[in-house]
């Protein structure tokens, strides 16, 4: 470990993303502030500054305190650790080893963020500033080159040139559909009606996804800058950011950013002395998944029930209040300034033939390094889940990865070498969606997961069209029966029939894609359905009516770990001798399975 020169100016970055805040990051930051400004440390305060930043990505190990320029990353920091960090690291130049990241595979301690395997394979474009800047500081954003491209676009380029550059970059909408962004802009600019509007879709309703949240929270100005550039390109006068109800921190962060941008002339009348006048307003959503669909979102901003309409005319021609409207999601907007700065050809050097650039994924579920990951399009699932994510924890085996939220599908282990982009995921029967990757292990029942998605969608279908409203309900009923051990042989054909009808006949994408979880699991995990229906057995041990647990006496060491975890005292046995489960007591909660280090507890 290196020692440091004490005269250096230290920059301390404290992760204050939602995950870390829940784990006490605000208290860590406050403790740091208090320590740096206390009387006897005044000298230190002069050479050190601390920033509360957005998400550092590796949420599983937070809260983080990252120290620059030495690049020391401390993990799982508590407020009580701060005096030691200040004393040892800042004053004496020593590293506090117990707070470093532990690389379990190599059995070493890792000092710098860039040496942690989780970060090594990432390319941060949309997340370029997240975790490095204080989102409430415009100054921080400016230091990172912020609003420079707005200036360049506004003063040196014609609107058509801006649109041309975005078209050339091949950027496709990151909200899930993957529609070419530049073409959307071009269509909007070509529609004669005025006024025109810009919308940022920050609804992010997919359960299991939080990348847009992290950008809105951690780098709000990049979203604003993207929107202002678009406003110039198509001649729009007003912008709206629709943020989902649950994201209170995102709203606060964006609100501050808008205020600062207005104060400095990046928003408002005659931006940077040009002819462009543009304002942005935040609209807080009401907590409806379907409002992520663009026409439903527009209805919601207008003050209506969030029901979608048929898109025979695109919002780029007739959108908000019937006017030409560009609607893109948060991550798409965050990509705009960097494309304008570094150029379309730089952007196209990243990614695959049909999908350029990078994609931010939220890597969660049964994976060691949960968090946010940004990789070039075309990175394989195996690289993301195993090299970056550190694989499935607790010695269990990988079963599937769910992509695209409730509208997506489950991808099995045979397809782990799939290069992830818009097209490959669609071909595999799933979709990119907004970028949630939910890893599932052998303790996940695919039928039950699909039942879960359908119950989610049943609650979220707006009910406007019959195929979606009734179809989801029927699918859910059948799946619930199967999970309760009342499945019938004809159910699979019935599921397929209903699912295919919904795909063809539903009004909006929610209904058309609602059957993806059903169809993709029937494609890859049909055996598991058959096990439930014909074999009356749930191999993952999740569906209670179909599971029975037993302890393999050959494997069980009698360590006794499972005994206290059983809520009904259904496990018996002496120490160091094989245990057994009294099946009439067992409520099949699975606590014992999850507590066993030897995988001695089996499912019938």
């Amino acid at each position, binding site marked *: 470990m290196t020692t440091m020169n004490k005269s250096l100016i230290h920059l301390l970055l404290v992760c204050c993303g939602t995950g870390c805040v829940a784990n006490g990051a605000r208290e860590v930051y406050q403790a740091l502030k208090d320590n740096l400004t206390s009387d006897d440390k005044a000298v230190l305060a002069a050479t050190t500054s601390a920033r509360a930043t957005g998400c550092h990505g590796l949420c*599983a190990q937070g809260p983080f305190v990252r120290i620059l320029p030495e690049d020391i990353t401390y993990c799982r920091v508590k407020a009580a650790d701060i005096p030691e960090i200040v004393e040892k690291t800042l004053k004496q130049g020593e590293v506090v080893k117990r707070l470093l990241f532990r690389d379990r595979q190599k059995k070493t301690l890792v000092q710098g963020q860039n040496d942690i395997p989780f970060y090594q394979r990432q390319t941060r474009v949309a997340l370029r500033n997240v975790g490095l800047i204080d989102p409430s500081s415009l100054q921080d954003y400016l230091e990172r080159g912020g609003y420079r491209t707005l200036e360049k676009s506004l003063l040196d380029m014609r609107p058509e040139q801006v649109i041309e550059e975005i078209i050339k970059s091949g950027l496709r909408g990151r909200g899930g559909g993957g529609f070419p962004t530049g073409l959307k802009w071009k269509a909007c600019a070509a529609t004669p009606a005025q006024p025109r509007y810009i919308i940022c879709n920050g609804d992010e309703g997919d*359960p*299991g996804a939080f990348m847009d949240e992290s950008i809105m929270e951690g780098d709000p100005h990049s979203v604003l800058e993207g929107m202002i550039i678009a406003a110039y390109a198509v001649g729009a006068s007003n912008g709206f950011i629709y943020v989902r109800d649950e994201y209170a921190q995102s709203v606060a962060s964006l609100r501050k950013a808008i205020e600062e941008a207005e104060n400095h002339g990046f928003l408002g009348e005659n931006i940077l002395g040009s002819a462009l006048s543009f304002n942005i307003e935040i609209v807080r959503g009401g907590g409806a998944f379907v409002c992520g669909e663009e026409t439903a979102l527009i209805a919601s901003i207008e*003050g209506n029930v969030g029901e979608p309409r048929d898109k025979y005319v695109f919002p780029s021609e007739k959108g908000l209040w019937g006017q030409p409207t560009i609607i893109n999601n948060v991550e798409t907007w965050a990509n705009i300034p960097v494309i304008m700065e570094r150029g379309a050809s730089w952007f196209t050097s990243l990614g695959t033939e049909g999908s350029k650039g990078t994609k931010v994924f939220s890597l969660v579920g049964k994976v060691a390094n949960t968090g946010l990951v940004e990789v070039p399009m075309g990175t394989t699932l195996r690289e993301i889940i195993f090299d970056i994510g550190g694989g499935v924890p607790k010695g269990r085996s990988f079963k599937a990865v769910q992509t695209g939220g409730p509208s997506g599908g489950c991808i099995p282990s045979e397809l782990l070498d799939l290069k992830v982009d818009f097209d490959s995921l669609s071909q595999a029967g799933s979709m990119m969606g907004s970028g949630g990757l*939910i890893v*599932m292990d052998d303790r*996940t029942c695919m039928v039950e997961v699909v039942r879960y998605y359908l119950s989610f969608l049943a609650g979220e279908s707006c009910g406007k069209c019959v195929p979606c409203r009734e179809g989801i309900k029927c699918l859910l009923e059948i799946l619930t029966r199967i999970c309760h051990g009342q499945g019938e042989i004809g159910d699979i054909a019935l599921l397929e029939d209903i699912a295919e009808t919904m795909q063809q006949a539903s009004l909006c994408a929610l209904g058309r894609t609602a059957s993806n979880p059903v169809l993709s699991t029937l494609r890859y995990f049909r055996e598991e359905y058959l096990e439930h229906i014909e074999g009356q057995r749930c191999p993952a041990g999740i569906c209670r009516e179909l599971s029975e647990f037993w302890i393999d006496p050959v494997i069980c060491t009698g360590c006794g770990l499972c005994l206290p975890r059983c809520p009904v005292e259904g496990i018996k046995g002496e120490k160091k001798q094989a245990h057994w489960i009294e099946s009439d007591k067992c409520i099949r909660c699975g606590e014992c399975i999850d507590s066993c280090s030897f995988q001695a507890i089996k499912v019938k």
Partner: protein
Amino acid sequence: MSEQEYEENIEGFRKIISGFPGEKRYIIAIMHELSRCYRYLPRSALELTAEYVGVPFSQVYSMATFYRAFSLQPRGRFNIKVCDGTTCHIKGSNILLDEIHKNLGIGPGETTADREFSLETVNCIGACAIAPALLVNERVYPRVNAAALKEIIKEYRGGGDNDHHE
């Protein structure tokens, strides 16, 4: 305040509603603000809203029932939202719901008799990396298990300083 007193608090509602422009597009924002102050949407407040923005009451009512953020029933002082996003679901959010039922005797959509706690499930709070998670008012609790849940409930039961946690 009893439900009846809420319903009669016309001046209070008017004050909140008139803080927004009288346009249809502010209905959701008005309802958010009413919810924040009263923890539900009293019927008379919705009637005033409809009148103020100039739409039929049926439209305001349909919005109040369509969007999940709003409730027509009074909620407790501490609103527990258990995340039932995919990740929380596969990491045992149903166990948390069972435990809350054991501890407080309420299921999703219900409020305790003393109006202290109410329970809801939400689809995802964006804290998937620290699943299973729950919210009490606006504070996020990470990796909650049965033992932690007991502590959280105790904390709010003993406390009583609502603002402190918001």
